[in-house]
């Protein structure tokens, strides 16, 4: 009894399988006409030749792929309207252009403009078609292996999927008629820092399934908006930028303030480079918005060394201004930090010794009137008096971007400039006044001998005097003790 039931069940399953196989094969079966055409067109090496130039394109159709495609149920003549089994004109097309135009026309026999426009990517093509140039459908969609849009993923990786369109020259038009190229150079993308990322890692909201239509007011709007995607990974840098002067300007509504992409680019984001070439490139980024400053810098002792001598020791913009949290350099707080900034190199023997520069410059500045005062002003917070007028720091005498070598301190030009600088804060000072400053020299027998001698005299006299006085006290006490 049980055996009989089992057999019946097996039989039923086999029957079901056969029926469903039957149904499936029927569903994807080629039309009789297609089968007939494929008798020839499935053959390898078959080509169609254009009448005008003798150029040819492959006319072979992969029958299996065609069978699986959404168009597999169609008759060949549904698209190739000019052909019949009995009518098969030779050299039907004059040229490749005519052929391409004809294929688009064939597609649009079924796919109406309304349907095409429903997809934001295609809408753009329609617009461009009116202007005379647009890719034809078959550039992206393989004619004979056309798969369904959803569910039938034929791309194994997202980049490949996106690039199937974005390798072409196409544009997005902003509301103010700005045009933004949407063409992506894959080779550029892959040779830079983000080569391992997927497109949707930055272009979030986009995927193989979704491609939302976005319109921007202007090209600049688009750049500012796209820089937002960087913070998903680079949150530390992003938070730093929130403290920067650039962000402050941006938040006031000035979209010209630089955002991530302006300096780092979009698809061609480079790794941080500490080579001379990389440093020069960095200065070029700042130059885009600060050309006058760059001009001064490139003529300065630092700029010349960088550009002419490929010197890696000289500072570039970011060494003083930092990168992401760039501060307003006109504030008192920034001004107060300048000696330390210059000191980073100029008090570091390994950097400046080879150029014959003194490393005492920071020490001598900090130990003198201005340096000491500045040191205290930095410590004196709100409650204590702090003048609105900044105290002289390195850049006040040496210049900032246009900084030049000092040569010898006795050179008249340096001194003449110095008087002018002194007079800014000390209006009554005359040309003798700058000599009150020892020009960063430590007093020595050759430099400022008077100061050296006075110091030396006290250095000898003071200990002798103190030892004498202490001896007197000790002898006195000793004698007192002995007498008792």
């Amino acid at each position: 009894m049980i055996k009989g039931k089992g057999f019946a069940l097996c039989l039923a399953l086999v029957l079901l399988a056969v029926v469903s196989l039957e149904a499936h094969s029927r569903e994807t079966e080629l039309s009789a006409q297609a089968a007939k055409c494929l008798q020839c067109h499935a053959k390898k090496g078959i080509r169609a030749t254009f009448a005008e130039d003798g150029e040819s394109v492959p006319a072979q159709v992969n029958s299996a792929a065609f069978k699986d495609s959404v168009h597999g149920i169609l008759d060949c003549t549904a698209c190739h309207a000019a052909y019949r089994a009995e009518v098969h004109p030779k050299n039907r097309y004059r040229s490749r252009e005519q052929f391409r135009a004809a294929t688009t026309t064939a597609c649009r026999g079924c796919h109406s403009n309304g349907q095409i426009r429903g997809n934001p990517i295609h809408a753009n093509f329609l617009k461009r078609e009116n202007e005379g140039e647009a890719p034809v459908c078959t550039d992206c969609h393989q004619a004979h292996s056309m798969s369904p849009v959803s569910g039938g993923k034929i791309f194994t990786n997202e980049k490949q999927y996106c690039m199937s369109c974005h390798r072409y020259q196409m544009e997005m038009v902003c509301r103010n008629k700005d045009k933004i190229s949407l063409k992506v150079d894959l080779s550029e993308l892959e040779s830079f820092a983000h080569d391992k990322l997927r497109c949707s890692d930055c272009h979030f909201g986009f995927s193989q399934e979704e491609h939302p239509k976005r319109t921007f007011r202007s090209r600049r709007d688009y750049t500012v908006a796209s820089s937002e995607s960087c913070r998903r990974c680079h949150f530390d840098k992003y938070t730093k930028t929130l403290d920067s002067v650039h962000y402050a300007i941006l938040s006031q509504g000035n979209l010209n303030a630089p955002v991530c992409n302006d300096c780092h680019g979009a698809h061609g984001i480079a790794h941080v480079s500490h080579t001379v070439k990389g440093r020069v490139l960095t200065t070029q980024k700042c130059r885009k918005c600060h050309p006058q400053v760059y001009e001064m810098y490139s003529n300065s002792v630092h700029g010349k060394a960088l550009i002419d001598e490929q010197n890696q020791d000289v500072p570039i913009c970011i060494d003083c201004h930092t990168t992401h949290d760039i501060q307003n350099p006109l504030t008192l707080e920034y001004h107060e930090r300048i000696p330390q900034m210059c000191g980073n190199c100029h008090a570091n023997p390994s950097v400046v010794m080879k150029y014959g520069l003194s490393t005492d410059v920071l020490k001598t500045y900090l130990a003198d009137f201005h340096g000491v005062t500045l040191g205290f002003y930095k410590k004196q917070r709100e409650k204590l008096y702090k003048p609105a007028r900044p105290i002289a720091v390195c850049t006040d005498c040496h210049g900032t971007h246009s900084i030049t070598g000092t040569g010898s301190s006795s050179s008249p030009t340096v001194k003449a400039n110095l008087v002018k600088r002194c007079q800014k804060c000390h209006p009554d000072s005359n040309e003798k006044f700058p000599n009150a400053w020892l020009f960063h020299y430590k007093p020595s027998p050759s430099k400022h001998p008077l100061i050296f001698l006075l110091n030396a005299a006290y250095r000898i006299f003071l200990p002798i005097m103190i030892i004498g006085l202490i001896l007197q006290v000790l002898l006195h006490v000793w004698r007192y003790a002995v007498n008792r």
Partner: protein
Amino acid sequence: MKRNPAEGKRMIRRFSRLRIFEHWGIVLCTLILFATGLSQRFWNLDFSQWLILKMGGIDNVRWIHRYTGIFFSLGLILNVVVAVAGVVRGKWAPTMFITRKDFTDAVENLKYYFGLDDHPAKCDRYDYMEKFEYWTILMGGFLMILTGVVLWFPILVTKILPGEIIPAAKVLHSNEALLIFLINALWHIINAVFSPEVFPLDTSIFTGFISRERMAREHPIELAKLEEEVPAEPAAAGSGNPAGLPVATLGTSE
């Protein structure tokens, strides 16, 4: 001779009220000047920075220093004027002048300390150590005033003198300050507090009186002169300013 009833010892008037006042003045001035000045000289010490910030910041400290400097200068000038006037008018003898005897006294004292002599040098009103202190502070004080003015008005000074005067003045001002500080604050205080004869404190500059016993030991020549003259003018006894006693001499001995 004046007796101090509280002590029950024979006390002799040594300093007039003017000298006591002068001493207080110089104590206050130097305390403020050292606090505001040395903290600037040793600006990189944590203590100096703490002190300067407590005093209201570097600008405040500089102004306090300058104005105290004015008071100090006035005191110093007053001292010299009074001393010179007193000597010129014959009111008192120029006891603070350095003489040959001071050098021989110093040598004599050294001999005594090393046991080569059985008694210390016999000194007059001011011994050589007191004179040394007075003159270092008087001369140092004038140097401080001069260099202080240069540092206060560098622009004015460089209208006439070369610019290098300013750093030179700074070197002099800060080194001399250290010298005066060490002589005053260390040596003088050690002598006036820890010297076995006076410990715990030499009170003569505060009360104006010194014991006869100390006078006999430290200023025997003056005591001898004094006791010679006293019987001639007994009426002066008991007054705040005993006649014949050169209470105000050339300078103080703080």
